[in-house]
């Protein structure tokens, strides 16, 4: 295995799970998230040179692919979960009441994400995946120094939307 392949493997192991998770949280569609995250890494591998900032490159490309793919699938868009397989393998089966609360909470989280402005949603979810401000700024074409402020605003918007969605359900 070449040094390049080893580097690619390491990057893949580190970045693929978080990219998938980010896309899934962003759109609520695991199938789409899997397709887009895979295609993003295919495109990364096809590059003749690695990007200067691989994490930012991955988010940027994935976001573009995601936007295009989601537009095509808009007729299938689902605003609310739950979807099949939403709980991890091995989770204990919750009691009926607990399951109800859990489903209600999950639906409220999804609804809140769909309610807040797209930029807020992306900043919130990218930071939740541990992306650095520099990477978020590069991917969303923002000024790095404004990320903290935008993040605080996005959290407020989410908290408010979540409260409304939860109590409305």
């Amino acid at each position, binding site marked *: 295995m070449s040094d390049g392949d080893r580097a690619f493997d390491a990057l893949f192991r580190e970045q693929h799970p978080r990219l998938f998770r980010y896309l899934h949280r962003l759109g609520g569609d695991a199938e789409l998230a899997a397709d887009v995250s*895979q295609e993003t890494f295919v495109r990364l*591998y096809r590059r003749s040179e690695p990007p200067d900032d691989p994490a930012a490159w991955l988010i940027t490309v994935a976001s573009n692919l995601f936007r295009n793919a989601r537009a095509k699938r808009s007729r299938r868009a689902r605003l609310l979960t739950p979807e099949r397989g939403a709980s991890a393998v091995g989770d204990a089966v919750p009691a009926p009441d607990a399951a109800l609360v859990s489903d209600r909470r999950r639906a409220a989280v999804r609804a809140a994400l769909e309610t807040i402005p797209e930029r807020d949603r992306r900043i919130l979810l990218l930071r939740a995946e541990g992306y650095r*401000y520099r990477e978020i700024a590069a991917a969303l074409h923002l000024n790095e120094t404004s990320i*903290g402020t935008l993040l605080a605003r996005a959290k407020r918007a989410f908290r408010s939307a979540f409260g409304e969605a939860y109590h409305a359900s």
Partner: protein
Amino acid sequence: MHLDDGGIQALLHGELGADAERWEGHVERCPVCRTRLEEARADEAELSTALRSLDVPAPSLSADAVRALARGGLGAGPRWRPWRVAAGVALAIAAAGALYALPGSPLRRAVEALRDSPPAAEAPAPTAAGHESGVALRIGSDFTVAFDSPGVADTVWVVVADDSLLSIRADRPASFRSRPDRLTVSGPEGTRYRLLVPREAPRVRIEADGRPLLEVRSGAPGPELPEDSEGARALPLGG
């Protein structure tokens, strides 16, 4: 002077850069900022819990699989090296067939289909990021790739690869059904396929509508099909 909202977030995330030490010292002395930082930390933990409630397991995809897809794609660009196509993604089925969806295929459905061990697993569908489609699978000692009702202009380029998986990619949305000894492929009129056959596979047969077209034995497709400059052999499927 207190930290503003953005500063609190930046401090929480270790993003204050050269100012970090100064502000950390300030927060130690300032009860207002300390309280706000603690609230921000608690808020972040709550948000994290909320978001985790949405999560599903990530698909089992390997870097090897991505490399295979990148190298095997039709029109893949400068990195396309037909004789060096590596293995693809694989989800092993115990004895032989394993089906794995390439870009645009419903991965989760494929996984579920495999887990339930049906006689065939669908892996079709338009892609998320284009119109190509394909599968990669681990095959047994005797395997058939069958093209179902190919159009007159359909062609498959057969490439023998130093790889452990058989993979096929179509330049249009095609459907793929697998059994341990057989892969059935169906695509729209005019589809071009690139089939990568593992060099070590003892026997791979290619059929179109039940007609035997080609047999590859231990990496040797036979002399009747001349290979092009890239080592691919064009095999018309129609007629």
